């Protein structure tokens, strides 16, 4: 389950929804990762562009990896502007046993940061500034250089 929202996420209600959806699925471990906009570097917030077709393909590949381990994943992300102390990202895994869940959430979140086609901008003094220095080139970049 991948869902994109305009603006900041309603974290408590999303977590409640996911937990309730799987309340009788017999998963012993549920681990959400919640990412929240920090007040730093004088920003007013962050803004996100998402290339949805590729994000969905990336996510489906992780759904398949999860399935191999008897696990499922759910993810939510913001589009557009997200203000300070609002949350823009929730990734989560449900699995029968804890080790799978603990290892999966780590690998999933790290690959998300390295590969998911989402671009981040600082909102500062009314401008939207691409956060190049905090961004990661996708594996295989530079093919056309």
């Amino acid at each position: 389950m991948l869902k994109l929202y305009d603006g900041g996420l309603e974290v408590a209600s999303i977590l409640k929804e996911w937990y309730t959806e799987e309340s009788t699925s017999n998963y012993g471990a549920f681990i959400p990762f919640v990412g929240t906009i920090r007040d730093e570097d004088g920003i007013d917030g962050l803004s996100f562009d998402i290339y949805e077709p590729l994000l969905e393909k990336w996510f489906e590949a992780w759904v398949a990896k999860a399935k191999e381990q008897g696990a499922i994943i759910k993810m939510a992300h913001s589009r557009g502007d997200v203000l300070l102390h609002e949350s823009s990202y929730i990734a989560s895994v449900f699995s029968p046993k804890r080790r799978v869940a603990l290892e999966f959430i780590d690998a999933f979140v790290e690959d998300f940061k390295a590969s998911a086609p989402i671009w981040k901008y600082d909102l500062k003094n009314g401008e939207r500034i691409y956060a190049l220095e905090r961004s990661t080139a996708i594996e295989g970049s530079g093919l056309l250089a």
Partner: protein
Amino acid sequence: MIRVEFLGPIQKDALALDITNLRALATILQATPDMKEWLENSAIAVNDTLVTTLDFPLKDGDKVSMLPPVCGG
């Protein structure tokens, strides 16, 4: 016709080109002003699948996307 899209922070309108592989696209973009840095740090997808070889063949109607460095979350 091949459609070439520049995603995220790359401020450039989409192109429609008559080319048959990525090598031709590389030649064209290398000659385009202000593209050098993006060419170095961007990945390439054809029809929303990442590709890793310049010899990737393109056919009429294909969509090529240029993906600069990402930072979700």
